[in-house]
């Protein structure tokens, strides 16, 4: 699947160099403790491409999304360089771009306001004719019924959730789409179908950054895969590299490869300890 669409755009939308994120916490009284979650992350996202960052749950990979959007919690501090479209991504640019050129697609409906109707929420309460038209277009593209716009998040049926969440990205003019674990709990087939929507966004010229722990999904849908482990970017590969173990560079990536069901069943004795 992925061979035919490698490197279409090649305009680098997002470039991150040596990103480090640490947290300060108070423990017992005034004693402060700092611990570093992200120790060195490098990555590039190009337009028209789907780049996957893969890492274990709780490895801090979600912080990447928050760092790019400028939404790290108040007790976090960050260093390293971030460039958006070749220019440094400053706090001011982040505030200007987020929700507009840089969009986030969240994990679940919990990220929607429980008391605001879907339509208004996707439109961010904007009311002009243009945005209404746009919403109608998106709804027909995603086969969502009109009355869904008048429903509250709790009324939605499971099948629609993803499409609604992606609609929040679609209604803007995104050049960078960050999808933080967008397919939780979905089987591979449904997850791949969801990923097609992201592929569409990439085909429209956006750079898509997929943050996930699902290696199989990344292999099946991404153009490039960046492996994140222990706070660092340790490997970068294209999906075809995952066809055999010896085309992979890093030991951890190899271990990941072996942990996949289709390979794991053959090599169980070798991979018990990743």
């Amino acid at each position, binding site marked *: 699947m992925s061979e035919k669409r490698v490197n279409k755009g090649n305009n680098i939308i997002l470039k991150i160099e040596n990103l480090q994120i640490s947290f300060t916490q108070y423990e017992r009284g005034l004693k402060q403790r700092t611990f570093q979650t992200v120790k060195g992350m490098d990555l590039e996202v190009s337009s028209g491409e789907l780049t996957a960052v893969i890492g274990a749950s709780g490895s801090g990979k979600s912080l990447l999304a928050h760092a790019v*959007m400028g*939404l790290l919690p*108040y007790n976090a501090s960050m260093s390293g360089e971030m460039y958006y479209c070749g220019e440094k991504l400053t706090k001011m640019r982040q*505030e200007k771009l*987020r*929700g*507009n050129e840089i*969009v*986030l697609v*969240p994990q679940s409906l*919990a*990220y*929607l*306001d*429980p*008391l*605001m109707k879907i339509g208004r929420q996707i439109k*961010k*309460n904007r009311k002009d004719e243009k945005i209404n038209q746009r919403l109608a277009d998106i709804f027909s593209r995603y086969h969502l019924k009109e009355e869904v716009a008048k429903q*509250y998040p*709790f*009324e939605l049926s499971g099948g629609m959730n993803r499409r609604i969440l992606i609609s*929040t990205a679609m209604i*803007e003019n995104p050049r960078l789409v960050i999808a933080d674990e967008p397919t939780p709990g979905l089987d591979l087939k449904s997850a791949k179908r969801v990923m097609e929507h992201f592929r569409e966004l990439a085909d429209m010229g956006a750079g898509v950054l997929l943050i996930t722990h699902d290696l199989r999904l990344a292999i099946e849908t991404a153009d490039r895969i960046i492996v994140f482990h222990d706070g660092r970017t340790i490997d970068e590969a294209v999906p075809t590299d995952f066809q055999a173990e010896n085309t992979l560079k890093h030991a951890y990536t190899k271990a990941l490869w072996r942990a996949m069901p289709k390979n794991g069943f053959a090599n169980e004795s070798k991979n018990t300890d990743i």
Partner: protein
Amino acid sequence: MKNKTTGNRIAFIIRKLLRLALLLFVTSITSFVLMKASPIDPLQANVGQSALGTMSIEQIARLQAYWGVGGNPVKQYLGWAADFVRGDMGMSLLYHQAVSEVIAVRLQNSLVLMVTAWLLSGVLGLALGAAAGMNRGRWIDRGIKGYCLVISSTPAYWLAMLLLIVFGVWLKTFPVGLSVPIGVAAADVTFTERVQHFVLPALALSITGIAGIALHTREKMIEITESEYMLFARARGEKGWRLFWNHGFRNVLLPAITLQFASISEIFGGSVLVEQVFSYPGLGQAAVAAGLGSDMPLLMAVTIVSALFVFGGNMIADVLYGIVDPRIRKGGVGQ
């Protein structure tokens, strides 16, 4: 479907009524027992030691019967209950009037005061609490929080006296007490005069009410700002007033409704002290007079009326919640 919801509604009303009956029974028993256990001797309090000394044993016995001293408490309670249910709530021993009449006049005075304070503290408390919560840690939050903490730890009556001293005594902007000017016939009292008399007590009651509501709203607001949907809204570029209006206000409104109606009891409690300080002839003052003067029927009636108000407030909050929150409104009660 329709039948089911109607059935649910009837069941809901019946449940509430049963609960109300139980509540009134328990409140009346409790206040009756407390009244009986009170160390105040009704005769000494109302007739005076010196007058009692000059009276014959028969006269004293008659007074004892009037004030309910030494009778069978069970019989007294049942007697009171019969009077109460009959409709006029019995006779007030202090005012020699039907309790219902005393309460009607007092309640009118108090209601103006309490409703004003209730609305004022609700609206301002919500606004201040929301502003503080949205701007957590900034100077505006610190200012509001500081104010609320100081006021929360200030007794209402002390604040009332402070207002009295500043505005009543020093600045002479407002009268020092009562609900109407002294020496003026009731018919001649102007509207402005009534307002002038009620500004200070209403102010005292509002200022103390605001603090509690603002602190609670602030907590809720902070919870909301830390929610995932707020994070996502910020990720979508919403900020400042729009972020608050679209998501913060909507979500803080629900707990605010509960708070607002729960605060009825606090306003009621506060009014007892504040009315006392300003000699404002309201329900609260009647409660104090009845308590100190051993006017059992009056005190019981005041207690029951307050219980009714608090219960009614909570019930309105319950019902409003179902109307305002789409999750309850559309989810249905029976599910």
